[in-house]
């Protein structure tokens, strides 16, 4: 492994010159105002997007990346929720993302995004059956995915789900609504540090 003495990113290799012709000034301003990125970060995100496409030279703003191409992104590849992430952020609902969807996704995961937006998207990602509440089945799938290859026994799983619901369910409807989820996550400082992908 080579370690370059990188003091500033100005002298680094990802120079901003090449990407500026892709976006008009108006588009870049719009993107900057509607996401939590600076202009340079937007160019960087575009570069990452291009690198995922099978034919990087032919990539335009309207290119759609299919699900398998998106799975090649290193942060998503090892993520146990990768199918949910791609489904939630895909605006057309068919697991394919345009550049704008990709930018949206990276913006939500970045450092500067406020906690409220992260919680909203986390709720959607973890809501496997998309019924606007995290019920027992959702929690079961969540824990299952998190344990990876080793599986918890049935009684253990039941006990865990019961413990989670007892702790967070305030109105006793056997599941977590968005308000309850938000309430718990705002009080939990580990959430922000874990729900983050740095570009």
């Amino acid at each position: 492994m080579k370690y370059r003495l990188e003091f500033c990113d100005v002298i680094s290799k990802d120079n901003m010159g090449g990407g500026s012709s892709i976006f008009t000034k108006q588009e870049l301003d719009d993107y900057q105002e509607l996401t939590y990125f600076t202009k340079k970060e937007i160019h960087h995100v575009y570069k990452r997007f291009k690198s995922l496409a099978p034919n990087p030279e032919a990539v335009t703003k309207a290119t759609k990346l299919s699900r398998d191409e998106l799975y090649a992104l290193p942060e998503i590849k090892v993520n146990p929720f990768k199918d949910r992430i791609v489904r939630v952020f895909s605006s057309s609902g068919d697991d394919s993302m345009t550049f704008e969807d990709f930018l949206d996704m990276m913006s939500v995961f970045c450092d500067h995004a406020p906690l409220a937006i992260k919680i909203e998207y986390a709720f959607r990602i973890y809501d496997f059956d998309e019924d606007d509440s995290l019920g027992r089945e959702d929690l079961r799938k969540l824990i299952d995915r998190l344990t990876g290859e080793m599986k918890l026994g049935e009684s253990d799983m039941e006990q865990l789900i019961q413990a989670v619901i007892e702790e967070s369910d305030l109105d006793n409807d056997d599941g977590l609504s968005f308000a309850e989820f938000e309430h718990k996550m705002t009080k939990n400082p580990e959430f922000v540090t874990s729900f983050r992908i740095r570009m």
Partner: protein
Amino acid sequence: MAGYGNGYGPSGQGQDIPMQDRSHFNPAYRDDSLQRDRVAVDMEGIRMEERRGSDGSREYCPEGSTRRRWAATAEPRDTADLINALPSRQLEQIASGVAAKESIRRRKSSRRSIHGTLRAARGKDANEVADSFTRNDDYMDELDGEARTTETLRRMVLPMHDKLSIKRTTSETRKQMTLKRGQTHKKIGWWKRTKYSIGISWMHFKHRMAEFAYSLELWRSHMKKIEGHFGTGVTSYFLFLKWLFLLNIPVFTLTLGFVVVPQILYRYNIKVPSGYGFSVNETSVSFTGEELLTGGNWFNNTELYYGFYTDQVIEIPVNSTTSYNMKYAYLFTCGGYYILCLITLAISISQSYKMNYIEGSGTHTFYNVSRVFCGWDYNITDKAAARLKHKSFYNEMKEYLSGSKKKSHKKNMEERCKLLFLRVLTNLLILGSIAGLSYLVFWISGSGTLKGSVYILSDLALSLCVSAIFLVFPPIFSKIAQFEKYEEPKNELYINMIRTMLLKTCVLGILVYFWFTDTAKDKYSCWETAVGSEIYRLVLVDFFFILGATFFLEFLRRICGQYCCNKGNEEQEGQAMGPEFDIGRNTLDLIYSQALCWLGTFYSPLLSLVMMVKLFIIFYVKMVSVLQNCQPSLRPWRAAKSHTIFMGFLFFFFLMAMVAVAVGVIIIEPSKVCGPFRGEEKAYSIVTNLIDSWKGDLKVLHDIINFISSPGSIASILVALCVGTYYMRIVMIGHKEMVTLLRQQLHMEGRDKAYLLRMLQDVSQKKKEKLGPSNVNRLLSPTSNSTLEAGQRTAAERKRATVA
């Protein structure tokens, strides 16, 4: 408080709500999960089961009611329709329109709308959202409307191209409305216009600053690599290192600008004597390599140490009227950077505490939820690290489950006594060893008997001894702590950290005491320079020990693991056994180094530069070592909480260092032959002289300062602070009680809702059977069953009242 407790019983701190009150309130109340027809009158007649509430309180609820969903027996389609017809669901869709309006008025204040983001996306398309924007005057305002629209849009949960189209639609509508308004001659005042242009230029400035900060960000790609392999725990160490590095930059800049550069200019102007390399007695001393290690001899008369600085009033250029008083400059720069560090540390520790302790505490630690919903670290990019993370999560869950299963058996008296005796013994042992080591350090610094034939080593003897103590004894302490059998591993970790810090504080305290007392001062003519060079040596030896520890503990352990234990490894899927990166020990080492730097900067102004170079090199060394040698840990590391604790330690050490330097300035007499304060009685007396000199010209200022520093006013400020703290505490206790009450109320509301919905379901089932399948749709419309709807509405209204 009125209106919240109606009909729900006076239970202030009680956690069980008597069943009598419920039936008294509503005789038709039936909890039919019990499948009883009789009204439940007294508590004894119902089998209660214990339910642990979300705040750790215990509640007694009718058996079975906690688990069954009210909708378990109904058809799914009816259930879904029923839920969507609820006013609270429709409220969300209305709220996205209303909250858009409300959020403008509340934009300046920090209150949020009902949900943090505007959950407008559910069920609405882009055109409807754009309409709700255009209907709102605040968004259509000529000047601010654009900014407000984009700000609100940014926070909304919508796909990007929807947001873009809404933005364009609204801006077109805004232009048309502006034109229309312009025709009716509604002019905007010049004040509003200037406010707007100032706001725009401020926003542009902020954007440009953000871009600049992004391009300058230090070490970003390296952090990303570490994060991808190891997750947030190890990254927190490197972030802490970077933060310390950035903290030292303004300290160094201040000393360079106000102290070092004037000194250099002064010597350049005076030209007596030229160059370096002479000692006090005007004999020449040459520069040999070993000065870098010992920090003495040649370095004694350079800008590195306090003793070299002049006490004159510098005139630059020579013989002009602008004078620069070196005494004031030195003292006030020192005060300046201490105050800067104090403010920075206070702000970060209060932010960290607020985030991690106050918001996260409530009445119960949220262990379950945090482990499950934050169980995955999205930063991980490496497959091996991902596998380890899965394993670590599995182990955590197993540990939690086994912990909750085993009832904490009450220790009987004998076991408790034994444990207490053991703990007292170990604590005495540790405190005794700390005292012994402190005396050892005192003896070494006092006696000159360690001068051997190797010249360097005798100078370095003290530093080597101190660093060796810090290397060897903390692991011994942690081994002793294992005998104490703490129940939770995190308690053991905290105890170990506290003991290590206590050891370091004691040793440093003894050293400082030794330097400031007469025994040291008799030996040297210029004691401040001696102190400065001693601290330089401590910093340097500490640096070498860190490098050595990295090499031996991490590199060699990996080599041993790879080549010695080869046979065992083949079974483990080819995973290399390696050491884990000890985050706690390494961070405590960093804190100690920084404390040394703060202690020594007054006596050696360029020490902050040495510290910066040291931190820079340590970053790269540690990064290479971690990536090559270490494995990610199986045990989870609570980065957020530990960050608060480390900041606490850092702050504590900073306060100790500041107190030590303050004692040196205010009480100890400066040496007579060197330094900016030679000849003064105490270094602080220049400040008192300055204030006294204002008695003539600036009498007002003098009187004000005398008044503020008088004992009476200081005492009254302290009393006011205590009263303020007490008030805050009372408010906090009141809030906690409020939270408990509201939680109970929410719980009751949920049960109300379940009960009402069950009744509705029963009625609609009966009607469906009567009417037949063709008229099913009519049943579920909100206009039928008006009485039940009224009941629903009151329940929903009460819910809204509690949420708002």
